[in-house]
């Protein structure tokens, strides 16, 4: 079943075609990687799907309904979760409260004026934190966490509305290689268990090639490839975008000792 269907999506910033006539779909239970060099338009795509930006042209359908022009909060209500390239959490709350906020909102209790928020949805919140490996830090202030941990908390928040589509913009930025693999493996497991559709961007090719079901490639706003991992790895156009001509990705089993062509780009400093 197609969860997300994107047709001819276009976004202009002044004269720059940041996203140029892009079409693709994500099925439920599919783990789809969106890759491309810096400035390819990946985050712009995410921001249009999640409602932070309005596209200039094209259509975005979630479960058959057009969500173009809807604000992020309405898209959340339809069952879309999101993590950001630079993690966005509530710094003045504890880790647990951050996740509770997602659950409170999902349960439409935001306008509660009397019962303390901290007693609401404690158990499910702790369970979500346990899944991302942050249960031990539940009572710490979110602002005190290391950046990699903040990203994990953000994932737990994004799962709070039991999303049918999860958008993850560089979920592993700021993590050590080992942590990356673990986190993506965890998400992969959720994809299978919940039959959830996940669209994610990732600079680490070994992570992508080891876990993604399918890969789409953006370059300068255009979709240049869409296919299974092996096909993408061998695609000359993709190789050219990443390396110029003449080089190829390693053919050794991905996820182990493959060279990591782009890992060094993927660690933006924490905000």
């Amino acid at each position, binding site marked *: 079943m197609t969860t997300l269907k994107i047709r001819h999506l276009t976004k202009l910033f002044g004269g720059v075609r940041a996203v140029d006539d892009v079409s693709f779909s994500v099925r439920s239970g599919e783990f789809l990687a969106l890759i491309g060099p810096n400035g390819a338009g990946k985050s712009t795509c995410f921001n249009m799907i*999640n*409602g*932070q930006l309005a596209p200039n042209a094209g259509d975005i359908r979630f479960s058959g309904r057009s969500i173009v022009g809807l*604000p*992020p*909060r309405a898209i*959340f*209500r339809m069952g879309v979760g*999101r993590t*950001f390239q630079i993690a*966005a*959490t*509530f*710094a*003045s*709350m*504890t880790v647990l*409260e951050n996740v*509770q*906020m*997602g659950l*409170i*909102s*999902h349960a439409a*209790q*935001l*306008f*509660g*004026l*009397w*019962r*303390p*928020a*901290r007693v*609401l949805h404690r158990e499910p919140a702790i369970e979500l934190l346990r899944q991302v490996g942050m249960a031990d830090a539940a009572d710490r*202030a979110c*602002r005190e966490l290391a950046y990699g941990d903040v990203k994990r908390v*953000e994932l737990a*928040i*994004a799962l*709070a*509305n039991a999303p049918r589509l999860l958008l993850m913009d560089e979920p592993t930025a700021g993590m050590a290689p080992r942590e990356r693999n673990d986190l993506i493996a965890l998400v992969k497991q959720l994809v299978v268990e919940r039959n959830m559709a996940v669209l994610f961007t990732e600079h680490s090719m070994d992570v992508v090639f080891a876990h993604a079901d399918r890969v789409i490639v953006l370059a300068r706003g255009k979709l240049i490839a869409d296919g299974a991992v092996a096909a993408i790895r061998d695609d000359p156009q993709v190789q050219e975008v990443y390396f110029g001509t003449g080089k190829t990705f390693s053919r050794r089993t991905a996820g182990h000792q493959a060279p990591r062509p782009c890992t060094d780009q993927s660690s933006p400093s924490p905000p």
Partner: protein
Amino acid sequence: MDAFLFQALNGFASASGLFFVGAGLSLIFGVSRIVNSAHGSLYMLGLYFAWTISQYMGGALGFWGGIVLAAMAVAGLGALIEVSLLRRIYHVPQLFQLLATFGLMLVINDVALGLWGAEDLLGPRAPGLSGFVTIFGRRLPQYDLFLIVVGPLVLVALHLLLARSRFGRLIRAATQDREMLGALGVNQALLFTAVFALGSFLAGLGGALQLAREPASLSLDLAVISEAFVVVVIGGMGSITGAFVAAVLIAQIKALCIAIGVVSIGELTINFSQLTLVAEFVVMAAVLVVRPYGLFGRPQGAVRSAGDAADMPLRPAGRPLLVAATALALALLSLPLLEARFPYALIVGTDVLIAVVFATSLHFIMGPGGMHSFGHAAYFGLGAYGAALAVKWLALPLGAALLCAPLAALAGALLFGWFAVRLSGIYLAMLTLAFAQIVWSIAFQWEEVTGGSNGLLGIWPPSPFDNRAAYYLLTLAVAVVAVIVLRRLLFAPFGYALRAGRDSPLRAGAIGIDVRRMQWLGFALSGLVCGLAGGLFVFAKGSISPEAIGVGRSIDGIVMVLLGGIQSLIGPIVGAGVYSLLQDMVMRQTDYWRALLGGVILLIVLLFPGGIAGALARWTQTPAGASR
């Protein structure tokens, strides 16, 4: 028709002075991101300096030379202020900067009081330009014509300076990205000082040029700075052209109001010449709603270094806090027993409690809500006048009148809040200030209903609350309930959602929170409780007048919140207590209370940005969260 054209000329003449102040303010903001509340004081000092020089030297040289020398003296003073004060506060949150320069304004006002006295000082006629020209059948002073020409001349000169000179290029670069400029090896400290001196020069010149037009007066600083705020906000922060256009626009609208005069529509008689104050703030509100960054402004580049220190998580009250709160409540409850010994105690006690309600309601939107309101007096005033009018015109009993207070404030907060939550940061502060000024001017100018500047008198609580002790206890009960309810709201999902919107609007939106609606509701609830404080105030004092709901009240509230510590929930209570005690016991004893208040403000900003609660928390070595 001639009357309108003549008033339009008048408008152009007044626009010049406004433009000078606005341009200076805008320049300084563009480069240093400081909103200099003391800019009106520099204008005022320019006028006082020019007056003094013209008195000593006399003649044409004394007049014209005095104007130039005064402007240069103000520039020098500006440089001194920049080096000694502003350099210490570039890194603190914008709210603190605004407050610090406001404190400076208070200090300067008292210095001027000491130097020149409280009487208005009228300057000489302008030598060589003392005559009149007849235009549109009326006599226009030659000096006004001169001012009409000077404004555009300075605009052109500033433009040339910014467009052609190296100094101007640096200013423009700093306006766009000052960190980048610093990284390129430009001596920022020198640049900032020079820009502040230039801005001060313009303000001083604007003031000095009024020498032949209006008397030097101590009320000029506040009057000018509120107008200058309106000008730069309408024109767009950082835009010189915007300042000019806005100054002309404002001056013309005022001139138009004066030219229209009294208009009768059926039963209703409106005197437009009394609506000048309201008119300019209405224009500002309208512009901000349509163009949130002003006519010529652009969204400010993010300032990477500054930023509000994030709060720590809320913790439910622990045993020490509960014990302390109970002890405090008991102590307050037993205060009437002291009445025989200290008859004044109950008056002070009532004042403190009202201040606590006021400050707690302000903290609600400033702290957790992240909306820095500079016009909380509006809701205090709406509550006060709501209760007073309910008694005067509807003859309602105390209970019903005290109910009218929060309802009137709620109505105002819903209306103003709808606009306010569409802005943020400095623009939000200015807009809330504008709304408060509108409420103030209505109270001041709608004499038939509000009693004008005298206000409404003789509104005392009826029996059984007609004695101090009983009314004190009523106030105590209301205050305790208000504080507990607001605290409870902050621990409830709504309070969390409010903080969520402040911490990260991006994340809040992505998990389904309608940030604006939360802010709007927060604004409304805060206004509601604030109105209650206003209602209590009326019956405590037996009267209400515009003086009690002016800018001073809003600033008092901010000082209380910051003095107590904005990041702590008990902060506003501590701050309100300490501040109003200080006000009642110390400031009433001296003519120089402004300087004292200014000094307190500067002390907070420079030494205790965390406020008393923050300092206590640090001092007791507990994490900041534990003392809440």
